[in-house]
């Protein structure tokens, strides 16, 4: 009996065990890789409209220290998604099993972040530690979906320096499920089979060589293979919908939000007191946004379906806090109370090079944030409801220039948020400075920043104490021993916010004074860095923001010196942008004017060396020195 049992248990293991000998990895996959995905299978079994089981198994060989993070396992779970059957194994370079995860070694922590008051999200985690490279880890887990809204996507190569031998994506669905899918960088079609009234979709890739991260590269989603899957009909937390169109997804959000927009009576009264006498829509929006900013704050609460459903407007009215969903829903309710049509808008937040949603594939997983919007044929106003200091109608880099889903009274539609162009993103520095006999610099700087360029200053102005500002300035300038004083700001709110900044700087030893010479770098602050050119460029160059910077510097040097050497004026105009620096000297006053513009654009990789040359020229010109000799 005992023997039988052994055979029964061992046999399948022997049959299924992968050979993780590291010599089986082709050399081409090891080149420039920190790790190699040996094998992966992501297997979704859809049991019905609101139930799915996701099994994930993968094995990665780690080649060096930089790949160690692949030996860490972690996954989230919550009331709507349980996590079980976690297993993990560690193999040496020969493929011999040397360690297995024991259940008691798996950590279990709350996954609530600092800004969240309450959430049912938790995480399980485990890490292998091995120093004998290469070694292999194999992990496996199972998730049980209680309700379907967002299904996992398949993207085997999620980051740079990872190669892949084999990865499979399998989705099993009932016959009538109508699984929708979208392939990115995948050649061919999935293999679809029908067996016992179950449809199986299978995708597979093999032998993919790692890529390296590059500055200004396109979004990762454009670079590697990805398959998105989504249901047509779905159900979660007692709510159901059809997401096969954006309108359908919008309708679902309407159902979730239904009945949650009732304001407390005192707030209704406040809304009327504030807006009844106002005539234009813009005025009403402005005053209510201001009221929202003065009277609420951001506190995140995410429990079960509450991860997608806003807290009631009544709750926000009483407690004066909520998350992005609750605050946007509350703002929309107030605007409607004032007779202004407004919408709840879901968006993917974050600045920089982001992945836009795919318009012909409607699904909720693009989004992680909610804002409000007052639609208008000519003058749509966008409102970030979680920020208490932002200008009314300015979206900022957090939600600008992207496609978003606007929830209307009847459903949903895709619209685009504002795009800030070159003339709206300006940084103008005016400097009056002098150098004393011992080389000390004193400078008064008046700067004006607008649009995307004023965001850092906005944070310094509103969210930093005077001491933090002192600290910031006293670290950020590229000067030897210096001190920044008299920091002042003046903000002009508006659709394109503007901040004027005044600072005074003294810098010891700014100029180098030797026995008879004075060395000066007349361009004080704006200094660009070089681009690296040691590796051939692979990807397109994506510059995702346009801006213009103008510095005018008037620098007075001590009397009694004559010019010995002076840099040449530079002016370069090319497809990447414009750069110029010009000097003029009158008596002991040096005037420097530097201009630089950069345009949002996309260039093929072949133009990278040309761009690097442009940066090299600017690097040199920014740091050019003037030398003066003491008159005898």
């Amino acid at each position: 009996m005992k023997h039988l049992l052994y055979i029964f248990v061992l046999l399948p293991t022997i049959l299924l065990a992968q050979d993780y000998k590291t010599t089986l990895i082709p050399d081409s996959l090891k080149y420039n890789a920190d790790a190699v995905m040996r094998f992966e299978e992501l297997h979704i079994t859809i049991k019905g409209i609101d139930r799915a089981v996701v099994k994930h198994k993968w094995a990665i060989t780690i080649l060096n220290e930089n790949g160690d993070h692949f030996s860490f396992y972690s996954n989230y779970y919550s009331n709507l998604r349980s996590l079980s059957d976690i297993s993990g194994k560690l193999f040496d370079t020969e493929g011999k099993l040397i360690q297995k995860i024991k259940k008691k070694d798996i950590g279990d922590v709350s996954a609530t972040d600092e800004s969240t008051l309450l959430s049912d999200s938790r995480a399980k985690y485990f890490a292998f530690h091995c120093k004998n490279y290469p070694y292999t880890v194999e992990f496996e887990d199972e998730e049980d979906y209680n309700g379907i809204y967002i299904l996992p996507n398949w993207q085997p190569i999620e980051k740079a320096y990872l190669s892949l031998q084999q990865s499979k994506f399998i989705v099993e669905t009932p016959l009538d499920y109508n699984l929708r899918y979208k392939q990115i960088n995948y050649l061919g079609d999935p293999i679809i089979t029908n067996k016992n009234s179950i449809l199986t979709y299978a995708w597979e890739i093999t032998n993919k060589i790692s890529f390296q991260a590059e500055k200004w590269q396109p979004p990762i989603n454009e670079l590697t293979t990805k398959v998105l899957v989504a249901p047509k009909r779905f159900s979660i937390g007692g709510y159901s919908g059809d997401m096969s169109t954006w309108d359908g997804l919008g309708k679902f959000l309407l159902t979730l939000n239904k009945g949650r927009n009732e304001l407390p009576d005192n707030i209704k009264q406040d809304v009327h007191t504030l807006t009844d006498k106002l005539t234009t829509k813009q005025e009403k929006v402005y005053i209510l946004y201001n009221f929202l900013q003065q009277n609420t704050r951001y506190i995140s609460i995410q429990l079960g379906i509450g991860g997608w459903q806003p807290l009631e407007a009544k709750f926000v009215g009483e407690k004066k806090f909520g998350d992005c969903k609750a605050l946007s829903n509350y703002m929309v309710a107030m605007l409607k109370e004032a007779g202004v049509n407004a919408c709840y808008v879901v968006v993917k937040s974050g600045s920089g090079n982001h992945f836009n949603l795919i318009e012909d594939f409607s699904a909720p997983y693009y989004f992680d944030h909610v804002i409000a919007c007052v639609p208008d044929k000519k003058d749509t106003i966008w409102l970030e409801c979680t920020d208490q200091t932002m200008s009314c109608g300015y979206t900022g880099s957090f939600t600008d220039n992207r496609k978003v889903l606007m929830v209307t009274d009847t459903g949903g539609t895709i619209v685009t948020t504002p795009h800030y162009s070159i003339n709206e993103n300006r940084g103008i520095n005016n400097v009056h400075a002098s150098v004393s006999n011992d080389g000390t610099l004193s400078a008064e700087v008046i700067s004006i920043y607008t649009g995307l360029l004023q965001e850092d200053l906005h944070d310094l102005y509103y969210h930093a104490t005077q001491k933090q500002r002192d600290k910031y300035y006293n670290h950020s300038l590229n000067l030897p021993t210096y001190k920044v004083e008299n920091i002042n700001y003046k903000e002009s709110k508006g659709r394109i916010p503007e901040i004027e900044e005044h600072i005074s700087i003294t810098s010891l030893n700014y100029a180098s004074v030797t026995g008879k010479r004075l060395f000066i770098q007349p361009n004080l602050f704006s200094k660009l860095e070089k681009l690296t050119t040691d590796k051939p460029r692979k990807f397109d160059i994506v510059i995702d923001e346009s801006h213009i910077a103008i510095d005018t510097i008037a620098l007075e040097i001590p009397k009694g010196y004559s010019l010995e050497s002076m840099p040449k004026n530079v002016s370069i105009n090319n497809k990447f942008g414009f750069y110029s620096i010009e000097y003029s000297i009158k008596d002991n006053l040096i005037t420097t004017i530097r201009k630089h513009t950069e345009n949002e654009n996309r260039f093929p990789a072949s133009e990278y060396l040309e761009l690097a040359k442009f940066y090299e020229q600017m690097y040199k010109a920014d740091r050019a020195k003037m030398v003066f000799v003491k008159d005898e």
Partner: protein
Amino acid sequence: MKANSLISKLLAIVVYASISLWSAKGQYKPIVKLEKISAKDFQVNSPVVDNNANAVILADIGSTDFEGNTNGDLNLVFKETKRILLRSRNAFDIATVKVPVYMGGVIDEEETFGNFEATTYNLENGQITETKLDKASLFKEKYNKYYNIRKFTFPNLKEGSIIEYKFTIKSPYYEHLRNWQFQDEYPVLWSQYQVTIPPIFDYLSIRKGYLKFAIDSVANVFKAYSIIVSGDATAASDIYRFSGNATAALWVMKDIPALKLEKYTSSNKNYLAQISFNLRSIHFSDTYTKFIVKDWFKTAEDILKKPDYSCIRDNNNWLRENIQSIVPDAAPDEEKVRKIYAFLRDNFTCTDHDTYKQSQSLKKTFQTKTGNVADINILLMAMLYNQGIESDPVFLSTRDNGWANESAALINQYNYVVSRILLGNKVYVLDATQPRLGFGNMAAKCLNGFGRIINKKSPWIITLSPDSVMENRNTAVFLNNDSIQGVVGTYSSNLGYYESLELRDELAKEKQEDYAKDLFKAYPQEIEASGLTIDSLKSYDDPIGINYNLKLKFGEEDIVYFNPLFDEQLKKNPFESAERLYPVEMPYVKKSTYTLNMEVPKGYKVDELPKSTRVKLNEDEGMFEYMIEKSDDNIQMRCKVGLKKATYNPDDYATLRDFFAFIVKKEAEQIVFKKIK
């Protein structure tokens, strides 16, 4: 059961006769109950509150008492009331409060959290409105095995709101008498902590920080305690009463400035005004006192008796075979120690550098090649013992953990364990948990004053002070005229020990060719560097040597400005802020010497040479020397920067900053070559 033994011993308690009250000395009196909030509380006038304060802690009042419980034991009763004025939105995050509640330990029961109230007060048109937090808005979060967290956020907040909360925690864990932190991220107007301890308990209190107390007093108060042992089906409940002179201590601080964080301090924990408690003894009767904190002889003996440490001297036969594959049986002791140390350092991963307790068995550590700092260093000692080599554990407190009190045997102050060993007549301190660390070296974070040797016969301390660690860097550059290539030469530098360690860590992750590219990029265009070689990269006991070739492309320029220090030049003052509150604590004493020997480039003459200079820091605490001279067609220079110690008082800060400002200035100077026409 702990409870029953406590009861039986308690019956013999002696009651002291004398009763005294708070001595009425001093101008301040403790706050018994906070006054009702009035309009004037919304306006704060205090020397420590300026426009920068986004919040002001108006009062933070806490106490710990003991009371009998129904389990035949005593509870600690901790009460806190805190009142905060929120002046700006930027402080709203402190309106979300998290209170950790302990539930671990041997008897596994959660401390009782109760008497909770939280209220927001707003001043609107001269009227104070109150919004109470409903009880349903108090949340409980399972944090980990040992703690649950009670969490809540205040409703109806505005800029200018006052928030107030209070709670009581009853705890059976009287070894965990709660510490009190007087100072905060925001200014505190009044912080008060009162602790009343029954005569049977003796706690040791430790104070930290630079601030003075407004009240600091101890008095005897008469207290009666009753303990109930609950009955069951067969027995009725028993009540035990005892009374006596309890020790009542009261600490108050007034007008406490906000805590500031600064660079080059080892740990802010050293400067934060706080008081902490350690249960020293329980006096059960005249004839029996249980000492929890003992002298170091007894403490060391106790530590070594526990399985954590006694396993070092167990008969770990299974180790023998494994060790034989690392070092032959017949090898001399020193070779054995070095090989075993290197084996652990190079093959094991330390996952937790913050404990002196083992987390698993020796065997498991050996098999998984993973463990915390105690697991690995205890394994080191066990392996050595197996080979007949004696070593002692050394406890220390790392720099980020703050200073440990040298005299009291409070092991909770320590968070790290290493090993001390005598080889021949030389003492080595070994830590096998730091990758690439040289034999007998300590990681910089371990240099925090001293370590305590855990040996029952000689529990002495060993010095682990930054002031005793010298970090020397020597660099030499030679440049000659070459008839074909122009000016060519070599750069060679021997790094200091810690700089070598940092470079080894960097090169474990980065390719040497990438490192070379970054290094060479720092040179100006007219200087070409190539052919990097790195000596002793893998011999961790030796400092690293860096060598490469230089080629100067002077070309057709009429005037050449040339910095003789190249990239060795200090470009920025490391001491940025203009003022300093706390001492400057650098991790080691640093010295560097740079020498240059160069021929004047062919076709050029020297038009200007920087002047030689020598300055001292505070007479003998540091020295900077810049010597340069030209003889015939040769330029020789030597530049030395040397500090004599690693720690400087705030009073010396301005001098130190000026000293470095001078170095930055001097090192920026250039040699000017002119073409001979």
